[in-house]
């Protein structure tokens, strides 16, 4: 699943992202502004310019994440605006999310251009060895790498984040020049509905006109998670697709009507796609591991819907044997697609991801540690079946190709290099892990 599960440990209230943001305002580290005439609140970095107009460049870059959208849904007849935008620009039919195919790590990859072993953010949910518990990677301090947001800020350009999800708000923290303070937030889903998010994006466009705006639209994902008809009809999902498509259309219309389009690059992509499972297609590894003499009581699991991260908490001297045992036991559980030692080069997840990564098959989900309670929702991602994403670049700026398609394998980690290339920024220290796609 994409967000904290209902039984995920409740973190201390002063650690919750919105509380942290509020504290930044209260302590004077950011200034608060009401804008847009609909109760929208934005916070800005101290000394930030009110608007970007007239500053070093007229270029504008917008990264719009249609969270959880599957690429085939763009052709499903419900998203004419997205389809037209895709067909008019440069599209990447092979595009994919990167492991773990979850929201937080892939948004972080978009803005850092580096893989989780360099950013410190491999999944939505990890076992924090210092804390001794499983938690969401939703703190600004969790993100160790430099972001293209901060690099543009240092270049004298302005940036804005309009992030509908609480943990995204949290992990990107105060990095952007201007930040929407999401409201209203649905308590269970932890996200603001797209209609409010888009209102905020439009208000930020009008009020601050940042050079780079990073927008997350969470409805498609959130409706997908809870869609009980997801394995067949996808009723709720289809409603969300149509609504979000209309909202993206409004944003594009505003770019055109305000003359920004000809200076703009609009990257539209998803962070992952979505897969649905029925209640009989659940994998729970914790009881299996706890039944093993070597592993009993010494393995913690961070459940990420379609991926389980397994952490050995026993003696370091037994780690190798434990990893081997965890993999062997997990591989024999129905619904498990594959298990991998976390240190495998291609995963590049870093130590925060534990010792073993298990992926489920399509049509299944993990529910750990508790089979019934930990993950009751039908829509999930994190596993390879949810890797394919829409990814296209539109806009009226001359650098944006029109009506082209590329067979190159674009990924979420390519967004930052593309934005950097658009603004003439070089690679960060250590280089990009992605590629500029213009």
């Amino acid at each position, binding site marked *: 699943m994409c967000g904290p599960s209902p039984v995920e440990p409740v973190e201390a209230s002063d650690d919750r992202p919105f509380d942290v943001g509020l504290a930044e305002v209260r302590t004077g580290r950011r200034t608060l502004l009401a804008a847009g005439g609909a109760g929208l609140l934005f916070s800005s970095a101290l000394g930030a310019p009110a608007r970007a107009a007239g500053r070093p460049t007229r270029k504008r870059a917008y990264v719009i994440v249609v969270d959880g959208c599957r690429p085939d849904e763009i052709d499903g007849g419900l998203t004419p605006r997205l389809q037209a935008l895709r067909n008019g620009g440069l599209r990447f039919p092979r595009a994919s999310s990167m492991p773990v195919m979850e929201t937080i790590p892939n948004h972080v990859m978009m803005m850092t251009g580096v893989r989780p072993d360099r950013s410190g953010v491999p999944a939505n949910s990890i076992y924090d060895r210092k804390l001794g518990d499983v938690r969401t990677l939703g703190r600004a301090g969790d993100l160790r790498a430099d972001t293209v947001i901060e690099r543009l800020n240092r270049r004298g350009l302005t940036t804005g984040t309009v992030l509908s999800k609480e943990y995204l708000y949290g992990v990107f923290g105060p990095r952007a020049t201007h930040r929407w303070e999401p409201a209203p937030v649905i308590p269970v889903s932890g996200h603001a509905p797209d209609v409010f998010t888009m209102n905020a994006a439009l208000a930020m466009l009008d009020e601050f006109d940042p050079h780079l705006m990073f927008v997350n639209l969470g409805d498609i994902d959130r409706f997908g998670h809870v869609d009980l008809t997801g394995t067949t009809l996808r009723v709720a999902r289809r409603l969300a697709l149509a609504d979000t498509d209309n909202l993206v259309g409004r944003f594009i219309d505003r770019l055109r009507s305000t003359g920004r389009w000809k200076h703009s690059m609009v990257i539209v992509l998803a962070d992952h796609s979505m897969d649905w499972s029925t209640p009989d297609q659940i994998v729970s590894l914790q009881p299996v591991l706890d039944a093993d003499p070597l592993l009993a009581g010494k393995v913690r699991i961070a459940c990420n819907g379609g991926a389980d991260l397994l952490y050995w908490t026993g003696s370091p001297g037994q780690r190798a044997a434990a990893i081997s045992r965890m993999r062997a036991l997990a591989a024999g559980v129905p619904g498990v*697609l594959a298990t991998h030692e976390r240190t495998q080069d291609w995963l590049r997840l870093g130590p925060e991801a534990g010792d073993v990564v298990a992926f489920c*098959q399509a*049509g299944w989900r993990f529910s750990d540690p508790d089979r019934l309670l930990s993950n009751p929702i039908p829509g999930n991602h994190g*596993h*390879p079946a949810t890797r394919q994403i*829409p990814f296209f670049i539109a806009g009226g700026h001359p650098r944006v190709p029109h009506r082209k398609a590329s*067979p*190159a394998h674009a990924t979420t980690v390519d967004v930052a290099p593309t934005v950097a290339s658009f603004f003439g920024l070089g690679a960060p220290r250590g280089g990009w892990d992605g590629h500029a796609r213009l």
Partner: protein
Amino acid sequence: MTGGAPRRLRGVTSPRPEPKAPLGRRTVLATGIAGAGAATLVGSSPAEAAQRAGTPVFRHGVASGDPLPHGVLIWTRVTPTPASTPGSGHGPPVRVRWEVATDERFRNVVRRGVFATGPSRDHTVKADVTGLEPATWYHYRFRLDGVTSRVGRTRTAPAHDATPDHLRFGVVSCANWQAGYFTAYRGLARRDDLHAVVHLGDYLYEYCPGEYGYGTSDTNIRRHQPRHEMVSLADYRERHAQYKSDPDLQDLHAKYPWIVTWDDHEVANDAFRNGAENHDSGEGPYRPRRARAHRAYDEWMPARLDGTAALGDGDRLYRRLRFGKLAELSMLDLRSHRDKQVSTQLPAPAPQPVPEVSDPDRTITGRRQLQWLKDSLGRDRPQWKIVGNPVMIAPLALQGLPDDLVAPVNAVLEVLPDDGFPINVDQWDGYTDDRREVFAHIRNHQITDALFLTGDIHSAWASELPYDASTYPVGDSAGVEFVCTSVTSNNLKDQLGTPAHSAPNLLVEQVLLANNRHIKYLNFDDHGFSVLDITAKRAQMDWFVIGDRADRHTPITWTASYATRAGTGRVVKADGPVGR
């Protein structure tokens, strides 16, 4: 697939003895330009004499195949003396010079070499030319003594990291000499916009004259040579030679590189790992027969078996050919490793399921090839994962077909037992666990743009590949399948003896479409060829049909086009053919 031909028992025919050649089994001297002078050949020769005597040295044409970014196979067969007929085992060992140039007049020759051949390999020449530039047209020719072959044209594949705008392939299958003329090959040869030709099997047929010809009466428009079913090595060689004497086939081979796989008739009808429907003990053990057929295939076809142009080093035909980041073509061998087809002779009148078709222990690919196919459908492969698939993978079910139409449909499709139970046992429908595993792999790894390119069933199809056909179109598709029709082999109208697109035939098509909602296009009645055009946005198949196979000059017309948009796994009708 079957042609519905009667069986003919034959004795075993051993390969004819071959004179010992002083040269090695196979020697390619890729000398490059520096070595061009090394192969000077002398004066009036047997080849020249043969040529003057009306025995063309290069009578079987030239061909190329299996293009790589830096290499391609070139092929010919020489007849150095009148006695050196295919399969004869007669004639001297000779050294054949070859040249590859960037221009048709050979002013800029970039590679040269000498190839030693002789009766041990039926005087065939198959050189693997390397050191070429990617995505480049080349011209090639051969010389034996003072005689020069016609000029062939070929093209290398794009570089592995290239992003070509498009790829365009001619697509053909099922060319039965006895059933008519190869007008379909002529249609492709007249085009100038292809990059290669893909042949999906049944390049030639094993039957003797009188078996499996034109229409219900099995009329032989042309008669096979030899005049008996091919069983011995000499038989297979002679039959290959006959097919390669066809002018339309020669023109198409000379125009483009070919990428080929075999189906069953390259050995015998309905072949499986240890036998074939059209093989019995009177013809000797099956595996040696198959080895002889594969040997002749290796000699006569521009394909790398076991990854090389060499003979005798193995007969693994499944292989991948990559075309930059845009596409990769994985050619399957679905005959050499499969288990025997299940029997569908079920008690009438009540249809009964055939549980063996889903037995996990039965395979159509073999375990090693199945894993290889799953690797071909990997996430790091090029965008379009095209599978050269000799037999149809789309599930096919049928209910409600009138009884009197079951037999003729069966004769074409092998879909139904006489009671109408829907199992296509010679195709993936007869090995459903392998199909389940392939589709599960695609679904588990969310592999997009899997395109199965299929032949075998003498009819044209465009189909989606549902994970669950019973609920489709609710649910997702693993990809699409485009099936080309036959060059000449009999289809439904030929089995019924009715005019094309007459009422019974259209009824069959409509019943099939109604029973299989994933199938979007079906044409049971025409012969012809297809053109597959690939871009990053979509893949489109155009179907062209010919008139009467018995008429060498029959017209060619476009009939339908269907496409799949990238990432959708769905089939949509296209407005018209590409390149016109």
